[in-house]
């Protein structure tokens, strides 16, 4: 049983005088442990409010470095932190905010090999990751360990929040049995996101965590909260446990963690795997070919706002999602080079064109970012 020092009594006084919290509730918070998976846009406000509230042990999993493009929304980090390990900066910031809480750092990817071991030390996990494979992984960990997974995810101006707790309601697989095919749903780096949105959703996530620990109010179990910041509307959808759910249903077929990248059809870090080497072109090679071969056709598969930030000259802009319906604008016998920001979307576009019967199509390795690094530094990175 935890006791409180005089300083702690002062620190938590606004909680202590709340009938719904009080000394006994604050003690529950101090006894509790929460694992924050990802400390980016959602994880920033989430971990800060959990630390401020006095959650006794907070685990952080992340392996990224702070980038300039994070600062628009990831409020744990400042300009001076660019290039540093997020985990180090976050831990320092949270300890400064509240030295009474223990911050545990996991400088690794959250994956099938370490996820159960890491998570088994926690009462609750909070999924603030940015990709589908890790979301299915976090779900399966929560079901297999029987602990709640407080979930939020965001897209442009929209957020989804719920609590997955398979003992009392549906899990993520009940709600979304299958992931979208790769490229079908843009992530924040591809589609953009309103910087404030993870702030709103991350604080909703923190509220749900705190409510679960305190055992007060009505948790978002079996309810999906949908927030649209553009019209500032909030809706609630009832979600149901699927009797046929492969992990929490009546006849489960999943009893251990699996290969989530395979399940989601992605291979992070090696997107060119499916392309043979003669379907890939390096930025330096492209630079010399553009001069030698005036018939070379360049296609940009990014979205128009990205085009406005930077582009290559004499390029045909066809956003990836419009490509299937705009093939008639291209000649199957042309010598084509496709690019995007980093080479992922364009690698999918090259595969698509290959399947559609195009004879010579190549992916600009590393996208316009690599072009900026290796050929033309006047092109801004974003």
């Amino acid at each position: 049983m935890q006791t409180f020092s005089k300083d702690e009594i002062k620190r938590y006084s606004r909680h202590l005088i709340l009938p719904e919290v009080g000394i006994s509730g604050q003690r529950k918070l101090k006894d509790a442990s929460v694992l924050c998976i990802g400390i980016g846009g959602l994880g920033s406000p989430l971990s800060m409010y959990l630390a401020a509230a006095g959650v006794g042990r907070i685990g952080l999993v992340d392996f990224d470095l702070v980038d300039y493009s994070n600062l628009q929304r990831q409020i744990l980090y400042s300009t001076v932190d660019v290039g540093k390990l997020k985990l180090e900066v976050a831990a320092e910031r949270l300890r400064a905010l509240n030295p009474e809480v223990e911050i545990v750092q996991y400088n690794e990817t959250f994956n099938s090999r370490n996820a159960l071991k890491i998570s088994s030390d926690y009462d609750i996990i909070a999924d603030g990751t940015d990709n589908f494979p890790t979301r299915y992984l976090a779900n399966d960990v929560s079901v297999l360990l029987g602990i709640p997974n407080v979930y939020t995810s965001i897209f442009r101006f929209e957020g989804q929040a719920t609590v997955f707790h398979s003992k009392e309601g549906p899990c993520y697989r009940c709600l979304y049995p299958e992931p979208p095919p790769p490229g079908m749903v843009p992530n924040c780096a591809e589609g953009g996101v309103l910087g404030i949105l993870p702030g709103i959703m991350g604080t909703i996530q923190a509220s749900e965590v705190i409510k679960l620990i305190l055992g007060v109010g009505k948790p978002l179990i079996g309810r999906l909260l949908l927030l649209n910041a553009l019209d500032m509307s909030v809706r609630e959808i009832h979600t149901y446990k699927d009797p046929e759910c492969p992990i929490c249903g009546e006849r489960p077929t999943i009893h251990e963690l699996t290969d989530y990248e395979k399940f989601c059809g992605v291979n992070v870090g090696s997107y060119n795997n499916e392309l043979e080497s003669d379907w890939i072109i390096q930025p330096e090679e492209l630079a010399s070919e553009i001069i030698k071969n005036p018939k070379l056709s360049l296609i940009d598969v990014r979205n128009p706002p990205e085009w406005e930030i930077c582009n290559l000259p004499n390029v045909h802009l066809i956003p990836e999602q419009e490509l299937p319906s705009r093939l008639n604008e291209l000649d199957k016998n042309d010598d084509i080079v496709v690019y995007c920001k980093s080479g992922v979307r364009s690698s999918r576009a090259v595969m698509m064109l290959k399947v559609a019967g195009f004879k010579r199509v190549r992916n600009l390795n590393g996208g316009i970012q690599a072009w900026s690094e290796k050929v033309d530094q006047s092109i801004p990175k974003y």
Partner: protein
Amino acid sequence: MRMSIKILLYGNLASIAGISSTNIDANTVSQLLDALAIRYGEVFREKLYDSNGKPRRFINIYVNGKDYRFLKKSDTEIFPNDEVSLIPAVSGG
């Protein structure tokens, strides 16, 4: 006068359609999806249906807040003034 169904679009579906709510006439979910695909074009259709012409599994469809998978799926009947939401999974963080 016929009263139509209210449609709420989320995620990329709203981005492609350029609108987050609209009205459409239909008697079943499958008619409604077809009408939407006609109205919003090829890119929208490709997001909505897989290569076998089935609605994609990562898009949840709710009729008056009830998941159509637990009703009669594409054959679920809809009536004037019903509200149908199309909600794709999103993963951003």
